[in-house]
């Protein structure tokens, strides 16, 4: 999944990998266990006062070569997802396919029922009176596309996910109020605890802390 994410900037990958809960089988697991910590680490987190500080820090961290990084903010910030190299989502394609299937399925359902399985002659009109089938075809298109959008978003985001390591971080409850966070995950191939901490401390951060799993 880490390789998948590396491609997101160059635009050829879909970048659906997310801040996954680290798996014990992952090769980078070794770096989770830092010698000074009894618990394995999820990563290092920096806390910022405002969106600009976070975006700057995210850009520089990305430029320093880190890829398994993520920002957390109380509202959507377009520049932030660009800064961490996440610019492409498969969601529009999923919704398009959903809509297409809904539309085709809706029409074929009506065609099969009204023409093949249960033909009724209404005023001598053709059995395949397709203009009369359009409203329901349209509604089915919208319904399935909307379901694809909502369920697709939740599935790609791996929600619902009640527990996540970042919730352990101090002040993280403010991520839904007025605080901004940047995390470099321990699963990053370049991860080195001291170097990452030093890098994050070089930014205009309020606090830099370790995030335990």
């Amino acid at each position, binding site marked *: 999944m880490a390789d998948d994410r590396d491609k997101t900037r160059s635009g050829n990958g879909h970048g659906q990998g997310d801040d996954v809960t680290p798996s014990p089988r992952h090769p980078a697991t070794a770096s989770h266990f830092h010698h000074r910590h009894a618990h394995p680490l999820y990563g290092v987190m920096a806390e910022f006062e405002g969106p600009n500080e976070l975006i700057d820090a995210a850009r520089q961290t990305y430029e320093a070569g880190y890829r398994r990084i*993520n920002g957390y903010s109380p509202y959507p910030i377009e520049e932030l997802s660009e800064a961490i190299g996440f610019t492409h989502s498969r969601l529009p394609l999923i919704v398009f396919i959903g809509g297409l299937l809904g539309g085709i399925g809706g029409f074929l359902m009506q065609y099969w*029922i009204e023409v093949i399985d249960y033909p009724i002659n209404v005023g001598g009109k053709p059995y395949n009176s397709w203009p009369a089938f359009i409203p329901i075809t349209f509604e089915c298109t919208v319904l399935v596309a909307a379901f694809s959008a909502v369920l697709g978003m939740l599935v790609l985001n791996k929600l619902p996910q009640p527990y996540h390591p970042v919730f352990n971080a101090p002040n993280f409850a*403010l991520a839904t109020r007025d605080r901004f966070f940047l995390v470099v995950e321990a699963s990053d191939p370049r991860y080195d605890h001291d170097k990452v901490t030093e890098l994050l401390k070089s930014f205009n951060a309020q606090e830099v802390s370790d995030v335990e799993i």
Partner: protein
Amino acid sequence: MHSTHPVIDPGLTFASVTDKISSIVLKRRTSLAWFFGFAISFALFQLMLLAITNLVFVGIGLWGVNVPIAWGIDILNFVWWIGIGHAGTLISAILLLLRQQWRTSINRFAEAMTLFAVAQAGMYPIFHLGRPWLAYWLFPYPNTMGIWPQFRSPLMWDVFAVSTYATVSAMFWFVGLIPDFATLRDRAKSKPFQMVYGLLAMGWRGSARHWHRYETAYLLLAGLATPLVLSVHTIVSFDFAVGIIPGWHATIFPPYFVAGAIYAGFAMVLLLTIPLRKFYGLEGFITMRHMHNMAKVMLATGLIVGYGYIMEAFFGWYSGNKYERYMIWNRMHGPYALYYWALILCNIITPQFLWSKKLRSNLVVLWILSFIVSIGMWLERFVIVVTSLHRDFLPSSWGMYQPTVWDWSMFIGTIGFFFTLLFLFIRFLPMISIFEMRTILPEAEVDE
């Protein structure tokens, strides 16, 4: 559109917006006025349950409907409620696509209004079936009777349109609420509230990757809801326009119904937000800019509706068809003429006051005008449904219609149910979208 009023009080910050809106739900003591309003609504809701129970036991003869007026005020109320709902979708979806920032502070509330109005609307056709326990026959499912619904009928289109609309509106509303559930989860002090909001938030943590997909999904939903809302009222108008009854069979119906729906819906949004913003002190979020804009939308759609009435009369005359001509004459001079002229007064004369900036700025006047428009839109559907049906082609099949006490009980009861849901909503959920408010704050500006 230049206006001196800002979209949001310039002194607000991320923290103050969050705390102010979430404290209505979490900290503020439930006021006596809330309990009072809720009690009245809940009592009326019981009236609805009584009316429905009686209807199911006795049968549809309890209502005043009979041939030739088989639709009566029950289908009228269906159209009225669903029309009200449309303003919510217009505000949340269409204004989002048009990048109208002012929608941000009223979209959550308007969407809730949509959902609750559609819930009322949906009940009428089901109980009007006569045997509501067989309502599932409307859906195409393989059955031992070997029969299928007739998809060439506008009534089937209606089933699909309304159920899709209700489903998509609910999803749109819920998706909009997820980040705010997370805000409430992190602010709540008591364990039960933390658990309930936590479950609803589904572990939302504001990750940049999540936000990216979230915004994509939200935008796509808005793009889907926009043609959907237009299709729903178009299809509702097909319920009439596809029939051959004079007064129904007109090509003006779809656009005129959609405009009427938005007109009625904005009237209802104003009717509800004017007292609410005062009571909860939300003047910094819902500013005079919002009031002016909504009044302007009401004026514009009111003029379209007025054009519709004029065109109906013109079609009747220009068709040269004696049934069409009689229909218009009967509307203006027949036994239900009072309804017609009251409708003209409420829906064409009343909105003209909105041309005046002074009157638009007076919230009492605006509230009264909105109230009159709501009544006017109810009268419009009365004229369309009842007056058209009561005298069609053959004088031998003419009749009169009188709603019974049970018709009125059901109608008043649904108003009670609507307000019951609305009171619960403003007590337990943030009535203004917190995360969207953050995006329009000066603090959120990113320097490039």
